[in-house]
């Protein structure tokens, strides 16, 4: 089984964790800096992974663009995440690597307004071109929740010291929240 940490060796990462498949349906999760996304996608394609979907998640820290990858021959699901800030949501496009991303990225642009740099044809896919500037799934700033509240922390394999989004808050708060972050 080619585990994700071996696969992504040498690519600058922010966060990499092994997750409990039975609990959340994913085996690995990784936060990547925007710069290393395309490289990671290339490695995944070379290792015969396929792209399941791309979705953005509007969190307090920014838009978490989530890439789910799965494998035809072996179980497991790898979740790659890239955080795009609210004021300038730019993420590199992986459509040159995974052609399936072409539509998923257009859909994500429709729903959240995340711009995928390098996408050849980033026009509205599901929404009307006339409402290109309306992003239905963006949340209003008050109801945004910090991502550590609900994203599975998993068993941390690597963490960039500067990446603090997934580190629990001060202990008191963390116990109170009692989420998955505390149990991991």
């Amino acid at each position, binding site marked *: 089984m080619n585990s994700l940490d071996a696969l992504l060796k040498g690519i600058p990462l922010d966060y990499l964790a092994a997750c409990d498949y039975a*609990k*959340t*349906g*994913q085996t690995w999760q990784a936060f990547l800096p925007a710069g290393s996304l395309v490289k990671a996608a290339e490695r995944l*394609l070379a290792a*015969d*992974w*396929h*792209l*399941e*979907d791309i*979705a953005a*998640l*509007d969190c307090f820290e920014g838009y978490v663009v*989530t890439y*789910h990858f*799965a494998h*035809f*021959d072996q*179980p497991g*699901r790898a*979740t790659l995440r890239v955080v795009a800030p609210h004021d300038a949501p730019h993420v590199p496009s992986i459509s040159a690597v*995974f*052609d*399936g991303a*072409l*539509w*998923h990225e257009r859909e994500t642009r429709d*729903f959240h307004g995340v711009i995928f740099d390098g996408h050849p*044809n980033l*026009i*509205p*896919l*599901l*929404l*009307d*071109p006339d409402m290109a500037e309306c992003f*239905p*799934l963006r949340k209003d700033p008050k109801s945004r*929740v910090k991502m550590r*509240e*609900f*994203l*599975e922390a998993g068993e941390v394999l690597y963490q960039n010291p500067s990446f603090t989004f997934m580190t629990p808050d001060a202990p008191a708060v963390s116990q109170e*929240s*009692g*989420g*998955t972050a505390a149990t991991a």
Partner: protein
Amino acid sequence: MTRYADMGQVAGDFYTENFAQTAQEGSLILNLGPQHPSTHGVLRVIVELDGEYVLRADPVLGYLHRMHEKMAEVKTAAQFIPNMGRVDYGHALAWNWAFVGAVEKLAGIEVPERAEYVRTITCELNRIASHLLWWGAYLLDLGAFTPIMYAFDDREKILDILQVPTGSRLTYSYFRIGGVAQDLNEDCFSRIKAFIPWMRSRLPMYKDLVSDNIILRKRIEGVGPIEPELCRRYGATGPVARGSGINFDVRRAEPYSVYPKLDFEIPTSPLMDARGRYDVRMIEIEQSLRIIEQCVEMMPEGDTLVKGAPKPSWKVPKGEAYFAVEGGRGKIGVHVVSDGGKNLYRTKLRAPGFSNLSLFAEVSRGTILADAVAILGSLDLIIPEIDR
């Protein structure tokens, strides 16, 4: 008189203009759809034609877009189930299952064993209905009018069976978080038991009428080759991937429910063309019958809804979960994220048809228009599912 050379006259809307920018000199740009007999609803495909040859094709989606993902954010989890019946009218119960399963996984709810069997039986019946619908509609695409009537004759029997527990015939909202809404009654079981041999007796007729027909064979053999590599790049799953020889089925790859206990085969075809996808679906009907037969035999007694099943006002605990099931068209994935509030924070629906259709642009390049239609049909499109 030469009106067609004048592109100004046929300028079209945003998408046509966008598409026409890179058109070749002297080619014909044709909008197949959104109202067109072979686009199964309201899909629109802009094609650039050189005579009968498709130079380029670009599907335009969104004509049936209902923003289910937003609706999931304004309803509680239990209230969202009716929506799932309407995402894919072909295989509604698989979508029911995908969403319910994701929430159950997130909340750690154990489903009673009988409910799992009931789910499997109804879901597989629904899969047969979905394949029959595809079969009829596909042959209609290829110009044969009669098969869809025979397919609907058989499909009607399935709908009659499913109507007993669910009360609906198309847009089921039958699964509940922690089980199913209603147990299968004796009437239902007797109908299912009668249906299995009857459906088996119909399959040879399908073969005689259509599958072996030389015209059909010539129409679909070698048409629309999809290499496994292409499937991987586009994330195509289901019969499209299996028709390309990829032995991938969520029921085996990520086993859920009672499928590990059941004995069935995953049909694959090395042909990689429309014929391969056709064969795979026809064999899947047989395999689904096998699954149902085993489930009816193994059916345990017990509840069909977990004790203390969530009420509509129930708040999903914090966390995230991804749950995938095998639908009639491929891997249906639902990713739910909850912040512990009243409604789910984010629900992502992964529609298999979405990924399957995205490879159409590449596969249809350079084919004849009739082949492009044959390829489009062989992908088994349900537009509401693609547009969500």
